[in-house]
């Protein structure tokens, strides 16, 4: 977006507004078409794969029932808590390791191969090993998720640290900025876009993996509830629970993280 002054006549020209309306209705139309095709496909599938794919209207009823049930919300808050715990820990640990690798050549030589390995291991392997080590309590899920997510954060943050403006490093040295000031005022602000990307990624990965962890190794939570419904072959509940969870997580991802992003990057206008 170019830096147009507010009084720019083009911005307020009626023709431009009309144009905007066209864009909005175009987007709207696209959305409507997309949703109707999904619904249509869903109907076709529900007829073709008869008992296993529930019909949309059955699912809507199930969603409504879920929203009114206390046991759903109990599972929901439990799972959200688990997502947040791993997400926050993985972000902090991952960012710290990423900065360390990016700033320090010795740390890079030592940790970079470990990081490459950690990125290559499939997530279920962490989950299985964590359960074998810690049993099926809270710790296993927390450890597995944190170990699975933080290497991604480290990797994104590391490349951003290495791509930093060396000119600002020199400036900080010449004006003798203390390390603490250099980190806060020069380094971390340069990492903000990468940290936001890493945060989004970590959040998305956390809430997708938490469902797997819960279904394999936990007696409660959204994942366990989905797995339970699946074992009883109640596919309506499976779909309903999954849909609510996905929608809320998407809203959090876009709404909250998007707002933080806007605030942190306001100097770019």
């Amino acid at each position, binding site marked *: 977006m170019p830096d147009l002054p507010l009084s720019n006549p083009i911005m307020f020209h009626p023709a431009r507004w009309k144009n905007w309306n066209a864009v909005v209705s175009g987007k709207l139309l696209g959305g409507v078409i997309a949703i109707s095709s999904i619904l249509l496909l869903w109907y076709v599938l529900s007829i073709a794969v008869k008992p296993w794919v529930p019909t949309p209207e059955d699912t809507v009823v199930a969603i409504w029932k879920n929203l009114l049930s206390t046991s759903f919300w109990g599972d929901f808050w439990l799972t959200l808590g688990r997502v947040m715990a791993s997400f926050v820990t993985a972000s902090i640990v991952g960012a710290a390791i990423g900065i360390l690798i990016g700033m320090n050549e010795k740390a890079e030589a030592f940790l970079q191969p470990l990081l490459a390995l950690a990125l290559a291991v499939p997530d279920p392997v962490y989950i299985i090993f964590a359960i074998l080590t810690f049993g099926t309590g809270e710790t296993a899920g927390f450890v597995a998720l944190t170990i699975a997510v933080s290497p991604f954060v480290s990797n994104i943050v590391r490349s951003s640290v290495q791509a930093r403006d060396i*000119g*600002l490093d*020199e*400036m900080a*040295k*010449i*004006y*003798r*900025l*203390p390390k603490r*000031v250099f980190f806060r*005022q*020069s380094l971390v*602000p340069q990492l*903000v876009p990468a940290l936001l990307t890493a945060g989004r990624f970590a959040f998305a990965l956390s809430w997708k993996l938490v469902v797997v962890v819960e279904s394999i190794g936990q007696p409660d939570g959204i994942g366990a509830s989905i797995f339970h419904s699946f074992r009883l072959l109640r596919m309506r509940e499976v779909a309903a629970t999954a849909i609510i969870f996905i929608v809320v997580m998407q809203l959090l991802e876009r709404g909250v993280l998007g707002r933080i992003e806007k605030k942190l990057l306001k*100097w*770019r*206008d």
Partner: protein
Amino acid sequence: MNTDTRETVLKVVDLGVSYGETPAIAQLDFEVKRGEFVAILGPSGCGKSSMLNVLSGLMAPTRGRVVVDGDELYLPRSKDPRLGYVFQAHRLLPWRTVRQNLEIVLGASDVPRDTWHARIDEILEILHIAEFKDAWPMRLSGGQRQRVSIARAILVDPSYILMDEPLSTLDEVTARSLRQELTGICQRTGATIVFVTHSIREAVYLADRIIILTRGPAQVFENYIVPLERPRDYDDARIAEVEADIVARVQAPWGLETVKERDVA
């Protein structure tokens, strides 16, 4: 030089810099007095940036001594010099406002906090950027950003200010107006300046003295006192005369063609 009673701020003795086996600076000896405006003139690749790295405390020389206000740098116990540096690019923190940028360097200096406000206002006034105190650097023009960078350098009470072709990225009109103000700013603030440039005319216009270097690895070719009183006019015929005089002197040691084409035409 014998009549100059001002104290010595910077003393460079038998300085040599090599990268591995390759020499970048053969030998440099010179002094800079308090309040002096010294231009360093040398052909590309002769070792000017290497010299600035040494004078700014960033890189230890291979040989020789650098003494700033009586303290020798690069000894195991020597303290960091208090310097200003105006880089080719502005090197401001784009996510901090002009005032915040200045406060950050003041926070790392010995300037008492209760005087910051007045100092910042005064220096921004002198540099004609007072109204941009709370602006983001990205909102400023290139010339305004470079003014902020100059303000930052003067603000911390430096022993001297190093400038590495600070006007070379600006358009000619902006460069002219900043050039014109730079000498006035130095007189008003008493700053000591070491100014590296490719442009002979710029050096003649700005400096009290020009240290002309040889082709790399650098040596001092000549200590040239600019024989012009102030204020000076950039388009004055006498500036052109001095410029021509210097061109004539450096033709042989620098290699004639490049000098003529780039700096005189």
